[in-house]
């Protein structure tokens, strides 16, 4: 049985999701400790490779210079193991003072009551968020409306297209604002023109970001207030039938190929010229372009529907746990990250587009990498389109994101009909999401 990278992530996610249930929190935010002296040591934990570690080290040095008497003790690991470790720390009430979060996992922690409400720190002037658009800042709120995370980087998913391959085959790229029907026509056109063995796209039926875009762009709510699925089963069935139709028409990569695809952008099939287009992180373009210098790459936002654009953001930010005993310094660190222009220049939107609007404009004008200006402009388009952001409930990653992929794979590999898979997905997601 093929196991995709997302299934492996899911296994880890589900195995460790239960750990948070052991947290002593009540589900409401812990006391926020405002005021205090900016001094002493804080622990910082984030995800990223060694190139990001270099950037963090430089920024941490700048912070320590700006605040003499402070020390940042940073540690990092890759995204896939980050939350395994963080879950264990949360369960033992020993989370780092500044903890990196992402919207997909944020509410696993807010519902356990292990994070501080950051609004009092903003009200006290310890963290300034004036330069972060309100719509972006709101991604840091939990289901109760409390602000638990200060965003610093905004990612989204998009369709990366091998533009050189498209040009050679005489395939025009979809125009801005293209619809789901236009997308289907484009796939059909591409199939006719591409050489044998090169599919037009990957099968994104199990991709959470693409489903969110489909739902939002067509005006469907995704989650209810208590964290259950808000859309009808028939909508998901139609959606999966659409992808199965694409697959049967020969537009897509084979299921086995999709399941075997590695998680690193250097090995994405679109990077290796094995497919014309593929769903990737929107901010991965500079890396994909750097890994394939022979072909020009570009990214398209997902198709629009009756309600407009559907690309929602996956926002990364910083939280302060309730077990933090140096909140003043942790808040100062977050404030420094949010507002220091030199730090933003060093980081260069390395983990999603910079949330600070002023710094965003600077980076669009002076991109640190080839393609970054296009990426950041695309982010600006999303924020200007005011895409309705769903509040991702507790258990989102383990049961919605990974569960969607797993159940769609059952359809792909003929282990279940669309109706059976939809039923199983709804049953699992609704019984597991939404907190304790």
């Amino acid at each position, binding site marked *: 049985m093929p196991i995709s990278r997302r299934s492996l992530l899911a296994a880890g996610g589900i*195995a*460790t999701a239960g*750990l948070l249930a*052991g947290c002593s929190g009540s589900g409401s935010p812990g006391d926020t400790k405002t005021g205090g002296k900016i001094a002493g040591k804080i*622990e910082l*934990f984030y*995800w*990223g*490779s*060694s*190139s*990001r*570690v*270099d950037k*963090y*080290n430089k920024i941490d040095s700048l912070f320590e210079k700006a605040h003499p008497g402070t020390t940042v*003790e*940073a*540690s*990092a*690991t*890759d*995204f*896939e*193991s980050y939350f*395994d*470790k963080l879950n*264990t*720390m949360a*369960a*033992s009430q*020993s989370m*780092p003072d500044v903890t990196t979060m992402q919207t997909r996992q944020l509410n696993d922690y807010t519902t356990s009551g292990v994070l501080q409400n950051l609004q009092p720190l903003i009200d006290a002037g310890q963290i300034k968020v004036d330069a972060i658009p309100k719509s972006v800042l709101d991604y840091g709120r939990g289901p109760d409306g409390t602000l638990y995370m200060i965003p610093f980087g905004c*990612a989204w998913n998009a369709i990366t297209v091998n533009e050189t391959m498209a040009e050679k085959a005489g395939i025009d790229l979809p125009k801005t604002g293209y619809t789901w029907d236009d997308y289907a026509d484009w796939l059909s056109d591409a199939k006719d023109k591409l050489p044998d063995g090169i599919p037009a796209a990957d099968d994104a039926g199990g991709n959470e970001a693409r489903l969110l875009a489909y739902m939002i762009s067509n005006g469907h709510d995704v989650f209810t207030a208590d964290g259950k699925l808000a859309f009808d089963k028939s909508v998901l069935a139609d959606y999966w039938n659409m992808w199965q139709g694409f697959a049967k028409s020969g537009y897509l990569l084979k299921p086995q190929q999709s399941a075997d695809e590695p*998680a*690193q*952008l*250097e*090995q994405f099939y679109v*990077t*290796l010229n094995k497919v014309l287009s593929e769903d*990737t*992180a929107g*901010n*991965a373009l500079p*890396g994909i372009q*750097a*890994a*394939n*210098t*022979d072909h020009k790459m570009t990214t398209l936002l997902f198709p629009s529907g009756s309600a407009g654009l559907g690309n929602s953001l996956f926002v990364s930010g910083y939280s302060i746990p309730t077990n933090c005993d140096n909140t003043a310094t942790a808040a100062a660190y977050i404030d420094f990250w949010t507002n220091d222009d030199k730090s933003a220049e060093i980081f260069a939107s*390395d*983990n*999603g587009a910079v949330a600070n609007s002023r710094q965003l404009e600077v980076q669009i004008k002076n991109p640190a990498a080839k393609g970054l200006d296009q990426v950041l402009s695309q982010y600006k388009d999303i924020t200007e389109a005011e895409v309705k952001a769903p509040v991702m409930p507790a258990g989102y990653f383990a049961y919605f994101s990974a569960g969607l992929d797993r159940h769609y794979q059952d359809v792909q590999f003929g282990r279940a009909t669309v109706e059976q898979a939809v039923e199983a997905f709804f049953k699992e997601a609704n019984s597991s999401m939404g907190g304790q």
Partner: protein
Amino acid sequence: MTTATSTRVAAPAIQRVIRPAKNRLAIAVIRHSLLIIVLILMLYPLLWMLAASFRPNNEIFTHLGIWSKNYTIANYVNGLHGGGTINFSRYFLNSVIIAALSVAGNLLSCTLAAYTFARLEFPLKRVAFGLLLATLLLPYHVTLVPQYIMFNKLHWINTFLPLVVPKFLATDAFFIFLMVQFIRSLPHELDYAARIDGAGHWGIFTRIIVPLSLPAIGTMALFTFIWTWNDFLGPLLYLSKNSLWTVPLGLNSFLDSTGGESSYGALFAMATLSLAPLVAVFIAFQRLLLEGIATSGLK
């Protein structure tokens, strides 16, 4: 007195089919060719990794063959520089320290525990042994959080202690079981003889059991080394400080699955280097390992 008459059945004459020299040569050539092909197939991933460690980062996955015109040692230089301010050699040193202490701990504690279960009689021995074996059935995630909380309360986080101290407390039930089975196969008469000569339990253990158990002990040492050297989750949980990282954590730091660039060249270079101790230990203990596997039934 009866004379038994035995009917001897003549064994069938063994007739060696002597093939012409030309045929023998052809068969040998085919056989060796097949073996060489299989060998190449088996070694290809290793050769590919070795070649990739000398190729520029942007060429590794775009040209999947082994040959390149752009071989470089830059990956080794960059890899040794590691992430941030830490040199990768530090990760090697940390791994060696943890692996060496783990091997020492397991050898000492598991062998003693195994002797106890195999040779001593004490109340509830069977129950205790059953409980020990039952720990093998516990998924790692069940004990993860309680262990973390305990070590956190002991202020052992960000030290090697959580990774090493349990090894001295006979916590690897698998190895105890392995050793118990091996020791049980040794004749008790040896113990009795030693006891007549005045040896106590310590004497029997050190002079009789340990020398005769060397194949199993070697197997345990080798597997402890390999598993500790490759362990990712333990160091991930307990070692946050970059300067304390082990080789697997260091290798992992070259990868980024969130849209950032990964340093595959450096990853393959350091992965190649990290294989060296494993290969060296395997070669050094190969004879003991094979004996251990053969005599303990371990597969």
